[in-house]
């Protein structure tokens, strides 16, 4: 009875608001577009535009279909790879990968939309040097036994868990800030209230917590994996301003000065256009922007207990120790 009364009132309110707004995008009681719901950004759109495409921003429908077919052919080929060694070094087979089968429906040729070549601008001289020093040191350590393959196919140190990439540690996945399409679990649940928006990221249950109350960022010395996010509305667009990242987050080479500006616009009931600008003057020679399309999804989100089930870390470290032991035995022979 109460529930029915309430829903009648809600319907009345919603009708009045949407008539005033002259569009079909759902709105909250505060009049702002309501982004709530379960969304997916799964896509095979490459992050950077292949160089041979030059300044071509959008595929024709035929080109897009051909790209999607070609991608599927490449994926299917992975099924032909057989044998224990391939299974182990690839770590995941086709049963795991789930980036979807389609480009974003905009048919853009890359996620990066600015600069116009669709590619991330060069790193600053200083940042390139820093990253080179780190990479060289890691490579040097792997001249000794006791390293492990990383998901980029390179050997990396494995003296302890902190040597390993953040993803292997379940500490941080780079599909959170910014929210870009990744290998799997590309699902997001948004719950919106007038002064706070929570985004549950299915990938290892990472959370975006976006305060929309006009308050300033937390003090600069407080650092977080997901940074510190403050939102504001510019017309019908939610703008999220995020700073206070930890240096290790290092999105595409960014450092701790990363300033991320994200813009979410529900362009129709089933679609959010999401643009993010990476502004980090100590890491990149100029700011750059990407675009990702979220579409409505069924759900539910699953609980991805990555750390709780991280047998992989024990296996990687135990494997590295076994290798050291073998090398020691060989040297005694």
């Amino acid at each position, binding site marked *: *009875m*109460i*529930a029915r*009364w*309430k829903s009648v*009132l*809600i319907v*009345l*309110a919603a009708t*009045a*608001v949407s008539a005033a707004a002259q569009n079909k995008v759902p709105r*909250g*009681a*505060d*009049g702002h577009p309501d982004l*709530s719901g379960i969304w997916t950004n799964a896509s095979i759109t490459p992050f950077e535009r292949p160089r041979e495409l030059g300044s071509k921003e959008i595929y024709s429908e035929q080109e897009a279909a051909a790209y999607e077919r070609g991608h599927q052919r490449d994926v299917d080929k992975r099924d032909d790879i057989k044998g224990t060694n391939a299974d182990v070094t690839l770590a995941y087979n086709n049963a795991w990968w789930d980036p979807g089968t389609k480009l974003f429906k905009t048919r853009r040729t890359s996620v990066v939309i600015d600069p116009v070549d669709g590619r991330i601008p060069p790193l600053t001289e200083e940042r390139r040097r820093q990253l080179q020093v780190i990479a060289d040191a890691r490579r040097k350590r792997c001249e000794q036994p006791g390293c492990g393959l990383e998901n980029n196919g390179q050997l990396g140190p*494995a*003296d*302890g*868990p*902190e040597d390993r990439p953040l993803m292997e*540690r379940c*500490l*941080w996945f780079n599909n959170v800030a910014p929210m870009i399409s990744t290998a799997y679990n590309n699902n997001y*649940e948004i*719950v*919106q*209230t007038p002064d*706070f*928006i*929570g985004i*549950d990221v299915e990938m290892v*249950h*990472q*959370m975006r*917590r976006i*305060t929309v109350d006009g*308050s300033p960022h*937390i003090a600069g010395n*407080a650092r*977080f*994996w*997901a940074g510190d996010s403050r939102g504001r509305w510019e017309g019908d667009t939610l703008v999220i301003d995020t700073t206070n990242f930890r240096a290790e987050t290092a999105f595409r080479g960014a450092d701790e000065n990363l300033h991320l500006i994200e813009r979410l616009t529900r362009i129709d009931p089933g679609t959010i256009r999401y643009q993010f600008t990476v502004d980090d003057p100590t890491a990149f020679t100029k700011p750059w922007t990407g675009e990702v399309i979220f579409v409505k999804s069924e759900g*539910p*989100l*699953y*609980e991805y*207990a990555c*750390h*709780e089930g*991280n047998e992989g*870390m*024990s296996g990687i*470290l*135990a494997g*590295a*120790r076994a290798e*050291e*032991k073998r090398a*020691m035995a060989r040297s005694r022979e």
Partner: protein
Amino acid sequence: MTNRGYARMSALSVVLVCSALAGWAQPADPALKRTADGNPDLNGVWQAMNMANWDLLAHGSAAGAVSSLGAIGAVPPGEGVVEGGVIPYLPAAVAKKKENFARRWTDDPEIKCYMPGVPRANYMPYPFQIVQGANTVLFTYSYAGAVRTVRMNTKEKPPVDSWMGWSVGHWEGDTLVVDVTSFNDQTWFDRVGDFHSDKLHVVERYTPRSNDVIDYEATMQDPEVFSRPWKIIMPLYRHVEKNAHLLEFQCIEYSEDVLYGHLRHGKGETK
């Protein structure tokens, strides 16, 4: 009429309808802040203020596990939050509880930064935030980045067992009732090894006493571990600080030495 006008009208109607219904437990409190749909507004950052996470039952102070931490590491005393002061373990489960207690400084999942389950997540010594949408209420916890989605009035079945369980909510007057099932058997209720099986069924009741205090109850049933349902009762307090925001406490990196330290270079046989 403005949106706010609708909100007020909606809230008022709920008050009127509630009052009109004979036998309704409590008339809606007109002093409570409400969301646009007329329900009490539980949005905000909350925290329990008790020692239940150390031990659900009444206890005196005790030495901690790490003597070098001195008073910081000691166990502080607590009044207990269990109704009747007894957790009704089945005889077979008593031994398991004792074993857990003996191994509490190594086996407590909290040490490993594992998701804490329900209701423990609500009375750990860290804040959590309620994000109250109309169809979905998100509980986001500082500790371990744990999160649970309360799906309102859904008939959808849980797809799989999980650490934080499957939460289905509904309103009974001004009380948010959350039914939580489909747990795994990996979480504890506290740091002294109170435990459950994967048959655990928790019913939580969140009743606002005022805009800043929620009376919280959780009733536990588990036919494999307990002889009858039992209940914990405690208030949850709103963080009223102006800058109360939930901060990320990603504790994985602090648990890695405990979990993987024995596999480090230079440890054990490979030394």
